[in-house]
């Protein structure tokens, strides 16, 4: 777990149960976890803390997940932070919008926390 000890993951979701489940899973895997409850808070925290990875819900008050990701893309210091988008199953986002925002991976709810952890490791280049 030593190679993940330094990595910080920011999770943004307005549903606290998602935040709790995901942060517990990631904390148990040795990550430092930050939580934001809406898009604006997520953007502020990301700019201030410069996490190694962003996991963001699509539907949030304020900025949505794609907007948060694309705003980060515009920041000099945060443009290379990889992002994973959580979205409702069956809710079809425009592929081009998703690509445009710099989102590399998507996972739809209800998701498996185990698979999400796999994606996180993949995004951060950590061998599972």
């Amino acid at each position, binding site marked *: 777990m030593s190679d993940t000890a330094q990595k910080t993951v920011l999770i943004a979701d307005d549903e606290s*149960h998602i935040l709790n489940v995901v942060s*517990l899973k990631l904390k148990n895997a040795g990550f430092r976890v930050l939580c934001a409850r809406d898009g604006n808070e997520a953007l502020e925290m990301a700019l201030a803390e410069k996490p190694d990875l962003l996991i963001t819900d699509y539907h949030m008050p304020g900025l949505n997940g794609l907007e948060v990701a694309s705003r980060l893309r515009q920041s000099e210091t945060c443009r290379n932070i990889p992002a994973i988008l959580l979205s409702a199953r069956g809710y079809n986002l425009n592929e081009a919008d998703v690509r445009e925002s710099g989102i590399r991976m998507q996972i739809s709810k209800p998701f*498996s926390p*185990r*698979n999400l952890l796999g994606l996180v490791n993949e995004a951060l280049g950590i061998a599972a």
Partner: protein
Amino acid sequence: MADHPDNFASKASYGTDSKTELDADLCRELEQTARQLRTAGAWLGVIGNAGNDQIEIDWRSAVVDLINQQADDEFKGVRWSSIVTTERLFTTCQLGLLRLVVMPPLERSSGMHPVLAAPLQHETAGVHQERDMLVLAGLVHARLVESLRNVALSAEVESLSMQLGNSYEEVSLIYHLSGGMTVNQQPKRYLQDLCLEVMQVANVRGMGVMLQLGAPGDDSFEISGDIKLPGHIVARLGLDITRVLREKQVAMVINQIRTSEFEYVSPFVTRMLAVPVMRQDLLLGAIVSFDKIGDEFSTADSKLLLSIANQTGVFLENAGLFSDLNSLVMGLLHSLTSAVDAKDAYTCGHSQRVALLARQIAVQAQLPASFCERVYMAGLLHDVGKIGVPETVLQKPGKLTAEEFEQMKDHVEIGAKILRDVKQVEDLVPGVRHHHERFDGRGYPDRLSGVQIPLLARLLCLADCFDAMTSNRTYRKALPIEVARMEIQRCSGTQFDPELADSFLAIPVEVIRDTITSVGEMPIPETLRAPAAISAETSNIVPLLAA
């Protein structure tokens, strides 16, 4: 003295035998508070009744250095009942050189009372001291209660999140299952793949699947994961599980296999959970989990496995219905094609060959596999409209009159009408209707040109003409394949889509020969043989006529 919570728990002893252990959260809170109080000149500890009215004492390690010896001496011989008058009150007392406030016990302290201690001051200062210490003790106590409540709440949130996380895994698994099961899939293969997922979510060492019990060749019991059973045991276990499930029709949970009727697998497996896959009252198969890691199988485990089994049952039922319906429709369509073939014996096998050839061209042109299969179907059906064309026209030896040719041309629209209302093939209608259009716009029925002509129709046109040229007809003999290929090349861009023509010409001659000879051709009666071979020069009119 090391500043470590372990010290507190281990030091919680003054009496002869300590039976009290403070939990880690409480120790942490006490320690933190004690450290802060120390800067204000006070010590925090806990005391409890060690039995026999003896006092059990534990000063927080951060402060023991100074007070430990003193407290030890002061408390020796003091009766528990003399300092704690009632469980619920804050009590002040003096012990030797110390002034104490004994607080009510905390919820998680197993009867241990927090104690605030300070060096005793006398007279006026002592009165103030007593009052100040009571106020301080009240605040300390309230803070400890509050912190412990928060600790308890966050532990509860954590445990709920853990459970919720497991539910997420299960829900996502079931979504995955229902989404991944499509009717044209091998259910057993799919289930075995799925088992690898279930093993991780359900935390089991191995899983087994049996499906289509009684069906020849597919009723074996296949086990995946970290469970290795000898073949004869697997076979016996499969039969026994089937017997029990057929009788009971509910989940079978065996947490002690050694004392069960499955005792013979106990060298390999310690626990087992088996659920039936049912289709109404019929047992179709079973899904089995082996050896939950570190725990017994619970009702939650059997519920998860049962919901997977139920979905599988519904899926198998649907797959069965789908296959029945599909074969009904296909049977009807084949009858229709046969009816056409019976009417026009000279084109017998033509539909089959056009289907094969058109699919081959589609594959060569790298069109999607699902589309290639529709092309095959369209090939079989492309001439069904001939059922509405008089036999005298269909079977006429020699050239058709203009009127007869018009009648012949009707077959594309008749075919489209017949197929329009059959849902399973309605997507093929444009192909059937337009398979006599020409790329240059001189075909029929709508004189479409270029890519206006549906792709399916362009494919059928090519295959249809090629087969017409290479078959014996009432009015001429079959052309050699090489000659027919040259014709295709020559008419590329006028009659045929040039790109498709290129794809067709890229298929090796031997492959085409094998394809068309693989379909049996009815022998043509001698009297109806074509009088003479048509020369290659005039053969380009043949495709138009050879409908």
